[in-house]
């Protein structure tokens, strides 16, 4: 019957060495965020978790935002589990992209890697009766749609043309955000192989865009959310030091047609006494996307529809990453990776994440993104001045 209280608060500073491309953007910004967590469990095993989130950002009014990350009632039973409320669900195995993961909307202003999510209202029933043999079946009813967050006019890392988030988004379905979405996922483990098969029907988390001129005659684009079907597959096989990974999706329902995409790769972990207890992980992944990426934004604007590939540039790219876990007292970790558009135009994104614990309650995190040759890719071009380094100090309570 205990109520537990936990959570974290952080201070974060960002620095962009290059002058901004657009008016109102800054070269540095400061931000503070807090995410408390209240948890209550009944003796029956049921529980309720409440996790609100708030961030203030000095430069970007869209990044200053509030969200309910979780407000979830969980009823666990021997043969099933029921979740009702707002929550987060992660599906998938790969590191460079998260194709299969579709339940939650991306909180894009939080981080570029797409791993920060908005809380999703849901009813989720998981059938566990035969999980050791036949696997687990999860059903989802998603009664409310969350719109993707985008940087505001003062924010760096914003798109061009500007994604107008001050005005209302457009929807294919007249129910708009109240369209009820459905999803199911089957998962099972066969010895060293983990398998997941999923299907989603409902509002695409990834928007397409419609060009729109504002009162001053400036061109903006607004998100356009279509009704889609997505079938996903995720596979992971564990060898001794190897992890083989695959995620693949097929999506249909977009105005500009159907497409498929995949991310396949491996992770190899070097370890042992020679490395002094450290783990050195090498990650290699290749990403493919069948959408037409040879696009000219101007032509698309004239056509009145900008496809959802505007959200990504990962169409024929590979990623090489290195993960270094020191296994020391401070749990020091460095993850660094480079995504390279090998077969197309040789634009690259270099990423670094490093973290280290300080004492029992603090953690320091250093993040950096460097966009190399971004001007060679129309879908990265607007980020060409936005390489940045970010330092965050997090307090866990």
């Amino acid at each position, binding site marked *: 019957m205990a109520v537990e209280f936990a959570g974290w608060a952080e201070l974060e500073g960002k620095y962009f060495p290059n002058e901004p491309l657009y008016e109102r953007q800054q070269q540095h910004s400061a931000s503070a965020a807090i995410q408390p967590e209240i948890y209550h469990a009944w003796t029956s095993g049921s529980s309720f978790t409440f996790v609100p989130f708030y961030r203030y950002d000095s430069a970007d009014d869209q990044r200053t935002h509030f969200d309910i990350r979780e407000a979830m009632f969980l009823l666990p039973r021997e043969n099933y589990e029921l979740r009702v409320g707002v929550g987060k669900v*992660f599906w998938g195995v790969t590191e460079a992209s998260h194709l299969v993961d579709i339940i939650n909307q991306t909180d894009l202003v939080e981080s570029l890697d797409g791993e920060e999510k908005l809380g999703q209202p849901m009813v989720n029933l998981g059938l566990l009766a035969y999980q050791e043999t036949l696997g687990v079946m999860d059903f989802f009813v998603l009664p409310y749609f969350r719109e993707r967050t985008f940087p505001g006019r003062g924010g760096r890392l914003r798109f061009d043309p500007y994604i107008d988030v001050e005005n209302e988004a457009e929807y294919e379905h007249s129910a708009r955000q109240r369209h009820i979405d459905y999803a199911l996922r089957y998962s099972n483990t066969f010895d060293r192989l*983990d398998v997941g098969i999923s299907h989603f029907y409902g509002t695409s988390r990834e928007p397409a865009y419609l060009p729109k001129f504002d009162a001053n005659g400036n061109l903006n684009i607004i998100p356009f959310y279509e009704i889609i079907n997505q079938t996903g597959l995720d596979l*992971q096989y564990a060898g*001794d030091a190897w992890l083989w990974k695959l995620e693949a999706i097929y999506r249909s329902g977009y105005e500009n047609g159907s497409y498929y995409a995949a991310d396949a790769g491996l992770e190899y*972990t070097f370890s042992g006494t020679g490395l002094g*207890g450290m783990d050195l992980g090498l990650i290699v992944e290749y990403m493919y996307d069948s959408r037409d990426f040879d696009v000219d934004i101007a032509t698309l604007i004239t056509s009145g529809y900008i496809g959802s590939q505007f959200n990504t540039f990962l169409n024929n790219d590979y990623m090489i990453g290195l993960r270094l876990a020191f*296994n020391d007292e401070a749990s020091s970790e460095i993850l660094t990776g480079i995504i390279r558009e090998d077969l197309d135009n040789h634009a690259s994104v270099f990423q670094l994440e490093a973290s280290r614990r300080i004492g029992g309650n603090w953690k320091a995190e250093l993040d950096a993104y460097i966009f190399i040759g971004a001007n060679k890719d129309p879908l990265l071009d607007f980020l060409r001045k936005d390489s940045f380094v970010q330092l965050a100090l997090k307090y866990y309570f």
Partner: protein
Amino acid sequence: MNKLIMILVAAFVLPLLVPVLAGAAEDPVAKGEAIAREWDRRDRGYGDTSATMKMILENRQGQTSERKMRILFLEVPDENDGDKSMVVFDYPRDIKGTALLSYSHILKPDDQWLYLPALKRVKRISSNNKSGPFMGSEFAYEDISSQELKKFQYKWLRDEACDKSVCFVLEQRPLYENSGYTRQVAWYDKETYRLQRVDYYDRRNALLKTLIFSKYQQHLGKYWRAHDMYMVNQQTGKKTRLIYEKLKFKSGLTEKDFTQSSLKRMR
């Protein structure tokens, strides 16, 4: 002459044969295995265990830091497979709610999944870093994971006084891959087969660590558990004390409490 020969044989040759004959009756490998088998037999049928675990890490300067976690074990009766375990971390706070599910095996690598609560992600992880430190402590993953009979080749070395009793001293050579040790030397007391001490020898066969077991308590009138395990790294001077509290047996845990679904519910 014959008599003289007989006497000479009796005086010089027979004493030489005695150790050989005694050795046949008491082959150190067979004896070591028998002792280890008896140690294993006495722990059979524990069913499941749950406990809270505190680790106190101490560096050479004497500065300490703490780790707190809860741990669940499920006995897998099959002698040819390892037990299942779940560890949920409580402290330091940044890893609160992180949980590790392991299906340990005898010779092949364990299956391990890590739950990252911030991402709600279950990640399968490679388990071949057996010699790597567990949570930055002096305990390696292989020291923490379940001690299965068939993971080692045993050899009885000697009997020796230990603490208030007499101990069997065994040499234990890991049979599984990626161990950080060439061998371990373990002291089991003769009355109860409780482990009293283990010396760990590194890949170069130099003494690396010493583990002392103390504060033994008997549970359910049968199962002895050390509530205090003190590991000293003899090469670096770093120390880790591991303290078990709230140890419970047979709380009715089943296979269903050790799945990826239950991993996601852990907190």
